[in-house]
């Protein structure tokens, strides 16, 4: 007799669910342990939902609880009567990590909540999304609620020096690997259907690292693999802190690239059979770039590239092919002048990283972190190449990079499936 699984929904949450019953829409708002910061967001979202999705049963779910014992911004299932123009009660629930602090538990609670409430559409947003025009939530939810899409990825208007990890790595590589042109598969803002939710939690996904850490990309790939309709929707301008160096970029690469490699691992039967890429339906403009001069310390980036490649020589030797490693070292050692990081080399190096991840040549987390100096070199070169560029030329460069990823995909498959060398 197998041991009974431990209950993972707190009793208080269960009481809330009993009260809420069934809903049409759920908007999950990540509090990032700062209830006060999201108070305004919740109010905005609620007002907007009441105006836009007039007849729908709506639950707002705050995720992560609150900080320092401050009053929770999201009250527990408190019916609201102050919206005289609204037809229905709007529910507010809290999924906290007070009892189960692990991220995996929180995600599991959220998804189980959405499933138990039989939600037809779920949107996940981050507090910073409140900067966007109010229509953004319509763009995110309507494709699911009204047009039968099962997954909606966001699109943003960005400054040209923002979202570079997506532009130079995540988007082109994800596009080439999985065969669909979804630009922002690693964003905190996304939406999905009840059908996709049901299909997702049908698997025992709670132990999967990719699901726990980057649920949005896990679900996107799940939808793509099962042929469910996917689209992307333009939300407007979203500002991010500019962090081309420091711990933030390390964390971003560990999470996002680590997730991508993990997804490649779990969905290898799917992506190895695709070639090229196809567009998905886009609601609104596909991309908007703001080109304004920015001051970037390129020398510092190059120095970190140089130092990192040198310091990690032993690790990179285990990950990269000798040819690629040599070319990277040569690039990092170049003294002065303009750094050009060829797309062909960048793509080849990334594919070798992915294959090394697959073969677990070293600890996978360390492996992904070893990519950081290369990435710094790549974006240093990006700034070098695009300092006077127009939005169109930047986009053209990105498209060219995407095509290079697609062109080299057979190499990825070859490396991925190669028999590991037995150490002599």
């Amino acid at each position, binding site marked *: 007799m197998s041991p009974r699984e431990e209950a993972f929904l707190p009793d208080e949450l269960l009481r809330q669910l009993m*009260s*809420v*019953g069934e809903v049409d829409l759920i908007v999950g708002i990540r509090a990032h342990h700062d209830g006060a910061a999201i108070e305004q967001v919740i109010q905005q979202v609620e007002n907007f939902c009441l105006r836009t999705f007039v007849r729908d049963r709506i639950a707002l779910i705050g995720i992560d609880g609150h900080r320092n014992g401050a009053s929770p911004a999201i009250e527990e299932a408190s019916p609201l009567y102050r919206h005289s*123009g609204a*037809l*229905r*009660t709007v529910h507010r629930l809290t999924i906290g990590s007070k009892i189960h602090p692990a991220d995996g538990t929180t995600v599991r609670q959220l998804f189980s909540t959405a499933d138990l409430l039989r939600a037809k559409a779920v949107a996940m947003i981050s507090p910073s999304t409140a900067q966007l025009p109010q229509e953004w939530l319509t763009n995110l939810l309507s494709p699911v609620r009204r047009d039968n899409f099962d997954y909606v990825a966001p699109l943003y208007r960005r400054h040209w020096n923002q979202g570079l990890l997506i532009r130079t790595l995540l988007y082109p590589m994800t596009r080439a690997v999985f065969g669909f042109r979804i630009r922002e598969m690693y964003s905190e803002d996304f939406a999905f259907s009840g059908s996709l939710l049901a299909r997702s939690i049908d698997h025992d996904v709670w132990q999967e690292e990719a699901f726990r850490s980057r649920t949005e990309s896990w679900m996107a790939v799940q939808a793509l693999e099962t042929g469910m309709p996917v689209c992307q929707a333009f939300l407007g301008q979203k500002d991010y802190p500019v962090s081309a160096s420091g711990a933030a970029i390390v964390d971003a690469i560990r999470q996002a690239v680590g997730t991508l490699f993990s997804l490649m691992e779990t969905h290898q039967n799917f992506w190895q059979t695709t070639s090229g890429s196809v567009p998905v339906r886009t609601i609104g403009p596909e991309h908007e770039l703001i080109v304004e001069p920015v001051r970037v310390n390129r020398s510092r980036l190059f120095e970190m590239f140089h130092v990192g490649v040198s310091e990690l020589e032993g690790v990179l030797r285990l990950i990269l092919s000798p040819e690629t490693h040599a070319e990277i070292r040569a690039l990092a050692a170049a003294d002065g002048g303009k750094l050009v990081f060829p797309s062909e080399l960048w793509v080849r190096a990334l594919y070798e990283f992915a294959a090394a991840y697959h073969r677990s040549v070293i600890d996978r987390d360390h492996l992904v972190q070893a990519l950081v100096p290369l990435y710094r070199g790549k974006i240093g070169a990006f700034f070098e190449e695009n300092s006077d560029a127009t939005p169109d030329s930047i986009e053209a460069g990105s498209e060219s990079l995407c095509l290079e990823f697609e062109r080299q995909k057979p190499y990825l498959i070859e490396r991925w499936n190669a028999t590991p060398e037995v150490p002599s």
Partner: protein
Amino acid sequence: MITRPQSPPVSGHASAKKDDGAWYKDALIYQLHVRTFCDSNADGVGDFPGLTKRLDYLSDLGVSAIWLLPFFPSPLRDDGYDISDYTAINPKYGTLDDFKAFLAAARERKIRVIIEMVMNHTSDQHPWFQEARNSRENPKRDWYVWSTTDTRYAGVRIIFSEVEISNWAWDPVSKSYYWHRFFSHQPDLNYDNPAVREAMWQVMQFWLDLGVDGFRLDAVPYLVEREGTACENLPETHEIIKDLRKRIDAAYSGKMLLAEANQWPADVRKYFGDGDEFHMAFHFPLMPRMFMALRLEDRKPIIEILEQTPELPEIGQWCIFLRNHDELTLEMVTDIERDYMYDEYAMDKTMRIYSGIRRRLAPLMDNDRRKIELLNGLLMSMPGTPVIYYGDEIGMGDNIYLGDRNGVRTPMQWSHGWNAGFSAADPEQLCAPLISNPIYGYQGVNVESQRRSPASLLSWMRSLIRVRNSTRVFSRGALKFLHPSNHRVLAYLRELDGERVLVVNNLSSSAQAVELDLRKYKGDVPIEMFGRNLFPRIGELPYLLTLGPYQFFWFRLRRI
């Protein structure tokens, strides 16, 4: 707290009845049309002798007041609201003696009688209007509102905008325009003329002297017109009502005035004055919200409107209803709510008329007995005097293919026999066709068969009314909403002089669990009022109840 107890403490048991003259507060009103209730002389039209014959049925049901739709001589172009003689009986319905006999029989059964007082307008066939249009010098000329142009009172809304294009109609006889807020064949009386007020007072005296107990005053907000206003709810209208009320109080006792003012509660509240205008007024906005709450499975609409409802003076009482002879009016809802109601209750556009839905209760509820019972349970337990529209107690259907609102005005279904027991005339001769479809047809839905079944809707309604009438807490008690987190459950307490009733309604189509915070009543034992069964004593912990789909409970809370 929404309302305060409206009567002084009564000694002894809280539900003990003391006659304070406010009989209307404790009444159970049954609304009917003489024409369609029972025909005694086989001419196909209901009449007073027929109605008198059916009084035992109403008495047995628990009815304590009858509200009669217009029974006066009329061209019947608006179901009798176009009166051509205010002090006579339409010959098709009988004679004045028949009416007197009906009144006496009703009094024997302790049933009060409320009649219509259509004050705002007459029929264009009324002798007053005939005189007024025939000569500009006639004294009756100024009994109506005339104009040489149709531009006066510009901007005033047209109530029947689907059939009228202006509030002015051209009179080819006197070659001038006359004012009408409703149909053009219903000219408005001119209440700025003291002679009109006097004439209407004489009409009221006529009926009061015969023994009627009250009037439903039709279309009250529109009595007076003033340039630059909406010509609704004007201060002068209130003065007219105060004057009538004063005259009634001076000459009679125990008479009641009921206002038909389809307005927001704050506007209707003004018609109670300081207790010196109306005794009762319909709560129009509550009615559609009960239907809305049921479909939304959300108590929000009901709580919102009752929280916006002002308190009434001591003598005042709301009159509440589910359906009546008119359309389910959606004037007092927002555009969003109206669209929702149309989509949910009247997808077929034939069902819609004048910003409303022309359907009876049972078809609106898809003939779902549980929903019909729940709505009646709400009606009987909410603050106010409930009105039952004839036939709804047996779940009668409607005929949306008849014109205007006539689909909800078909003959009462007494039996499965000839013409549903309504008339011995030939079917072709009936004043309106019977409902005969397989679901609501009189062959299956009728009084006779339901009387024989203890499980019928009629038997259940009788039981419901009996329980309601067992206490004054429903008719006079204060209302206090509970706010359990489950929004599909509407729970409230009715309290009067130490007596407490807990009402819990499941608005949803699925079973629900609800936890009620009843700590304030710790130690009380809930006793279910229909079966008189005891429930667990209330303690410190939330009181857990489970309810089946559309189920409701009435508990008397007793300290035993």
